[in-house]
């Protein structure tokens, strides 16, 4: 088992591909259909496009504060590739590539970041929770969801993400400790992107790895090269297998990097060195997967261009659709507070309607 070989206390990190896309450890190379690999690549390219465009839109005042994903595409995608349609995906706010894989229409994401609640209105059956802003608070929810699946003997799992910063939060602890106790089918992925706004990873905890936090909960942890989508896939696949077999939760630390600012309101130059970014740019997860596919003869320059072109088109489509999307009416902002609107709220709504109509 990978999780035995890569016990975090051994200070090893699971890696399948090196930056040139060469397989470091052939026995670990996943057996994936070429279609699947190509879809993974397309997803990463699309995620990168949507992400870059969001930053531009924000600068143009067409989208609100936005947290860039650049550099973390593999860390969110690999785990999503290892779950099925009936499994739940619980994200934080920087998991674009994983969401695309899971089937979320990126239009919803743009609507969300443009400040429309319709952006979190997902089709029934998608099995994705909306973005969670209070850091770490998605984790106890993910445990409850997994618990529900478990007692129904569904054999489904709940995959959740959080950041390195989130590991300091009480919610993280209570969730993982409870999951360990109940042996719920949870897979916990930490996107350790080295920063929580201006706080570097080593100011977040004195533990040398985040994966070893699993020791506190009595279940396995594993540290994975988060810029290596195959490694992330392999680790998650094993964790998902354990969960499905009733062996309980697993903690996966994806060692990655936030190449952009924390959000578009942030300026990372204030607190981190340019060189660090330069180093990590060399480890770009997209470049690594591309190199692997090229090495395997599955991708050439021309195809690459087509894929990029398609991603750009798709991005343009969602920009247009999102900007055309109807804005919330006064009824919309009131209507979903309760299943049935209580009388006081109806009165408040009526007054608002009256005021907006120019009345008093």
């Amino acid at each position, binding site marked *: 088992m990978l999780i035995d070989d890569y016990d975090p206390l051994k200070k090893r990190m699971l890696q399948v591909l090196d930056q040139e896309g060469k397989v470091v450890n052939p026995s670990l190379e996943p057996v994936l259909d070429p279609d699947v690999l190509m879809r993974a690549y397309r997803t990463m390219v699309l995620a990168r496009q949507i992400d870059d465009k969001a930053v531009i839109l924000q600068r143009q005042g067409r989208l609100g504060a936005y947290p860039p994903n650049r550099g973390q595409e593999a860390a969110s995608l690999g785990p999503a590739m290892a779950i099925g349609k009936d499994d739940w995906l619980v994200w934080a706010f920087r998991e674009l590539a994983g969401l695309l894989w899971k089937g979320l229409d990126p239009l919803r994401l743009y609507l969300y970041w443009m400040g429309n609640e319709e952006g979190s209105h997902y089709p029934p059956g998608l099995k994705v929770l909306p973005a969670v802003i209070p850091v770490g608070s998605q984790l106890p*929810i993910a445990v409850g969801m997994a618990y529900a699946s478990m007692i129904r003997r569904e054999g489904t799992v709940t995959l959740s993400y959080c950041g390195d910063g989130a590991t300091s939060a009480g919610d993280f602890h209570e969730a993982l400790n409870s999951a360990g106790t109940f042996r719920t089918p949870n897979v916990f992925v930490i996107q350790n992107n080295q920063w929580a706004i201006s706080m570097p990873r080593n100011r977040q905890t004195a533990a040398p790895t985040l994966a070893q936090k699993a020791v506190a909960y009595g279940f396995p942890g594993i540290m994975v090269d988060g810029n290596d989508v195959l490694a992330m896939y392999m680790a998650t696949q094993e964790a998902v297998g354990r969960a499905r077999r009733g062996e309980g939760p697993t903690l996966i630390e994806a060692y990655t990097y936030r190449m952009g600012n924390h959000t578009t309101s942030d300026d990372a130059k204030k607190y981190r060195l340019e060189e660090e970014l330069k180093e990590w740019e060399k480890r770009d997860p997209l470049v690594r997967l591309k190199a692997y596919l090229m090495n395997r003869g599955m991708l050439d320059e021309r195809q690459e261009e087509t894929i990029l072109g398609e991603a750009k088109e798709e991005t343009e489509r969602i920009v247009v659709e999102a900007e055309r999307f109807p804005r919330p009416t006064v009824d919309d902002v009131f209507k979903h507070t309760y299943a049935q609107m209580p009388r006081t709220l109806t009165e408040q709504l009526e007054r608002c309607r009256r005021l907006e109509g120019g009345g008093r």
Partner: protein
Amino acid sequence: MAVLNMVSALNQAFGGEMERDPSVVVLGEDVGRDGGVFRVTEGLLDRFGADRVVDTPLAEMAIAGMAVGMALNGLRPVAEIQFMGFSYLTLSTMISHASRMRNRTRSGMHVPMVMRMPYGAGVKALEHHSESMEALFVQVPGLKVVVPSTPREAKGLLISSIRDPDPVVFLEPTRSYRLMKEEVEEESFTIPLGEARQVREGDDITVVGWGAMMPLIEKAVGSVGKKGIECDVLDLRTLSPMDSTAVLSSVRKTGRCVIVQEAPRNCGVAAELIARINEGALLSLEAPVERVTAPDIVVPLPQGEGHYYITPGRIENAIERVANF
């Protein structure tokens, strides 16, 4: 029809609902083998098994968060918090998720959960075991807050809360758990949320309360009745949404009102009721509304209780003062 105290009535409500709906689960500290520190969940573990009667680690944030997750994934969780004094740990989850998931997703998802807890004073308890901070929850849009005052009410309101599609905070008056018994139908029944209960009719003055204050109010109202003051008594029952319509129409009839609130004064439910009376029935008022509340201090330990708690005498005073204004 059996004569039950509130603990047994609640236990019966659980039994019935868990029989009826396999998605109902109970979770919290010591709710299983121990049956809960007040024995409300006694026997449920044996009847419904450990999957559905879940003894949790000591972690209130996880209890609330897990309940949200269970509710989102097809269950109807009823979480127990051991005392209201520990429920503050759940506020972030209740405010940020339980109360908002419906609006956040434009009704794509919702959170049918109940969070129950004993609240209130008068049982000579330790620090943090006597608190009445219900307004913390009442302030939160998207939550419902329910407070039963008698065994039968407790059963009907708990069943409604469990069946409600929205998150309900269900506050059980510790002092009333075993204070009184009444006849309670064996079978399941519901009492609608959001409707106050008319306890007694009278034309002279409106007296509003809820939860543990109701028995005190009834005493006081009995005494002033002997002096010829006829009270219109309302048990608010649901603090959110608040049935101010019932209060306003009573005040329009009587022109006078006393509100009895166990909690400290500042920004409590009584203040909100007064604001609504001001807005909707000011011209009917023949006297300032009076609130009988706790002072804005920390609940004293048992030896100081006597200086703090509301007594029937204090309520009586207030009623007479307002009636004779």
